[in-house]
C-alpha cells in the first residue's frame, strides 16, 4: 500500500505538478499491466485454441462464482484508485485553498487575451492577441489566482503545473498554485472560445522572490531575467 500521507509532509505547500505526477505514476503501471495481461490472454487463447476441429470446442459457458470473485477484485481496485484520487483532490482543491498566498493575481479572460492584474502593486500585464507580456511570479510561494471572464468560457491552463481551471461567466473561481523552479512556463486557453482561440496564449515567468520584489517595485516594467 502506498503511504500517500508521507509524500506530502504537513505544512508543505501543495504542488499540483507533484500531485499529478504521483497519481499518474501509480495509474500508468496499473494500466500497462492490465493492457499487457489482456493482450497476453487473447494471444494465448488464439495460439492455443485455433487448431482444433469445431466439434472439439468445449461446451461449458458459465462460472458465476468465478465472475463474482473477479468483480469483487475489480471493485477493490476501484476503491484503491478512488482512495488515491480523493486524497490527491483533497490537497489540490481544499488544502491549497486554505494556504496563505504570498501573492494574489486577478486573471481575466476575454476574446482573445489574458489580463493579469496584481492588486497589491497595481500592475497589469496582458497577453494573447494584444501582445506578449509575461505573468511574472515568485518561485516557491503559494500564489492565488482569481480567475474570471468577461465574455465566453475560457480555461486557464499551465501544462507544466498539470493544472487548469475554467473561467465561467458570472463567477470568480480561485486556484492556488506553486511554481517550484525558476523559468518559463507556457500557458494557454484550453476551452474553445471562438475564432482566435489558438492565439490566446501566455507565458509565466517564475523568478526568485527578491527579483520579483524588485520587478514589482519598478511597477512591472521590463521582464526580470
Amino acid at each position: 500500500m502506498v503511504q500517500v500521507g508521507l509524500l506530502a509532509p504537513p505544512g508543505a505547500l501543495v504542488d499540483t505538478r507533484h500531485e499529478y505526477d504521483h497519481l499518474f505514476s501509480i495509474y500508468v503501471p496499473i494500466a500497462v499491466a492490465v493492457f499487457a495481461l489482456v493482450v497476453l490472454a487473447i494471444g494465448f487463447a488464439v495460439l492455443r485454441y485455433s487448431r482444433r476441429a469445431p466439434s472439439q470446442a468445449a461446451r461449458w459457458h458459465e462460472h458465476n462464482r468465478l465472475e463474482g470473485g473477479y468483480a469483487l477484485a475489480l471493485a477493490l481496485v476501484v476503491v484503491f484508485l478512488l482512495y488515491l484520487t480523493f486524497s490527491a483532490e483533497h490537497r489540490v482543491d481544499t488544502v491549497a485553498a486554505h494556504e496563505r498566498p504570498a501573492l494574489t493575481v486577478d486573471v481575466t479572460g476575454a476574446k482573445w487575451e489574458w489580463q493579469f492584474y496584481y492588486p497589491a502593486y497595481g500592475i497589469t500585464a496582458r497577453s494573447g492577441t494584444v501582445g506578449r507580456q509575461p505573468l511574472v511570479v515568485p518561485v516557491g510561494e503559494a500564489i492565488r489566482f482569481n480567475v474570471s471572464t468577461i465574455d465566453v468560457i475560457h480555461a486557464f491552463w499551465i501544462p507544466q503545473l498539470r493544472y487548469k481551471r475554467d473561467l465561467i461567466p458570472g463567477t470568480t473561481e480561485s486556484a492556488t498554485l506553486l511554481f517550484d523552479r525558476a523559468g518559463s512556463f507556457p500557458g494557454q486557453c484550453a476551452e474553445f472560445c471562438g475564432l482566435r482561440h489558438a492565439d490566446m496564449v501566455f507565458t509565466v515567468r517564475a523568478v526568485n522572490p527578491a527579483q520579483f520584489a524588485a520587478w514589482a517595485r519598478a511597477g512591472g516594467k521590463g521582464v526580470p531575467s
Partner: protein
Amino acid sequence: MTTAAPAVHGPTRIPGVLGALTSTDHKRIGLNLGLLSLVFFLVGGLFALLMRAQIAQPDVQFVSDQTYSQLFTMHGSTMIYLFVTPMALAMALYLVPLQIGAVSLAGPRLALIGFWIWLSGGLVMQSGWLTGDGAGRDGWFAYEPLANGTNTPGVGQDMWVIGVMLAALGMTAMAACVAATIARRRAPGMALLRMPVFTWTALVSVLMVVASFPVLILAMSLMYIDRHGGHIFSGFNGAIDYQDLFWFFGHPVVYVMFFPYLGAAAEVVAVCSHKRWFGHTAFVASIMAFAALSMSVWAHHMFTTGGVTNQYFAFTSTALVVPAGIEYFDMVGTMVGGSIVLRTSMLFALMFFIQFLIGGLSGIFLASPVLDYHVEDSYVVIAHFHYTLFAGSVFGFFAGVYHWFPKVTGAHLRDSWGRIHLVLLAVGTNLTFFPMFFLGQDGMPRRISRYPAHPGWGTLNLLESIGAGIIALGVLSFLVNVVVSLRRRQPAGDDPWQGHTLEWATSSPPPAYNFELPLPPIRSYAPLLDRRHEQLDRAGASP
C-alpha cells in the same frame, strides 16, 4: 416446437427506389439508415482529413481559422449524430427482430417517421455549409454562452442546432421501436435471458437513447430560443446548466456508440470460437449495471468548471471498471476452450477489444479529477475518445459488417481485401491517435488551428496526419471490397459461419417476414448451436 412464419405471403410491394424509401420493413429501414450513416462517415472523414492537413505542421495556414472551427465542429457532429450513433441503431433495427425471431418491428411507421426526421436533421446540419457564415462552428457540444446569438451569430449555427434536434428526435423514435419490439415481439420460447448478446447490448442502448436524448432535444430547443432573444443560459448558472443538460445526453450517447458494437464483436468472437458466449447471465447483469452507471457519470466532462460535485462523478466513472472488466473476462472466457477461426471478422473483433482497451484504460485516468485537471480539453482527450469510438466502435462495426454482410446480401466479402482493410486501418489508427497522448500530456490543447513549433510537436502531428491518410486508404479498400464482392458475387448460403443465433436460421437475405421455415426450438441464447450439438451427440451415439 415453435410456430412458423405468419400466414401472409407475397404481398404486393412498391418496386424500386420509391418502395425502398417508403418501406416499413425493419431490414429496409435499418439498411437505409446504415447506408446513409456510411455516407455521413465518409463526409465526416473528409472533414478530418482537411483538419489533419491544416495541423500537419506548425504555423501553416491551409484553411482559415473560421473554416477550421467549422471543420472540427462538423467532423464531431457528423460522426456522432450522423454516423456512429445511427449506425448502432441501424444494426439494432436490422438484427434485433431477426435475433429474437420476430416477424416485424413494433411500430414500424414510427421507425420510418424517425428515419426521415433523422435524415432531415442530417441534411439541415450539413446545409449550413451553404450559408454565408458557414456551418456550425462551436464544437459538437456548442457550449453556452459561446453558442448564443451574440457570440456566434448566423444561420449556419442555427442550422446546426436544428439539425441536432431533428437527428436526436428521429433516433429517439427509432430507438423506442427497437425497445418495444424486444418487449413485445419475442418468438415463443425466447425468454429474456435467451436473447443473444447483441440484442441485450442493443436493448440497453435504446433504453439509454429514450432516457437521455429528450434532454438533448430540450437543451437544443432552449439554445434556439436563447439564440433568438431569450435569455436562458446566462451567467454562471446558465453556463453550468447547459453543460449539465448537454452532457446528460453527451455521456450516455458515448455508450450508445459502444454497446451495440461490443455486442457485434461479442457475437463474432463467439461464432468464430465455435463456443457460445461465456457468462451470459453475468454479462446481462453487468451490461445493465454498465448502462445505468454510464447514465450517471456525465459531469466528469465538467471537473474543471468548479460547478459540479467532482467526487460523485469520479466515483461513478471509476466504478465503470467493474462491468467493463466483466465484458473482457467473458470475451477471453469465450475463446478459451473453443475452436478459433481467424476470419476477417474475428480479427476486427479482436482488434476492437485490444484497441478499445487503450481508450477504456485512459478513461480511468480521465475519471480522476486531479488527472483530468491537466488533460481535459487537451489532445489526451482526443486520443482517448478516438480509441473508444474509432479504434473501438468502428472496428466493432467492421467486425459486424464482415460477419453479417453474407446475411444481408447473400454474398461474401473478399477476405483478401478484408486483410488489407484491417492492416491499413489498424496501422493508420494507431499512428494517428497514439501520438496524441504525448502531445496532450505535453500541453497541446484541442481545437487550435495553429500551434507554435514546440520541440517534437511538428513531428508528432505530421505522423498523425500521415496516419489519417492511411485510415482513408483503409476505408477506401473497404469500399473497393464491397463493390468487388457485390459485382462478382461469391454466394454465401444461409449460414456460412455456423452461427449461433436465429438470424442464421433464415435465408440470406431474409424474406419479407423474416422466417419462412419453422424456427428451431429456442432453449438458450444460442439455439442454432444447441441444434448442432444435438446432431453431433446423435451422430456420436449411433456410429
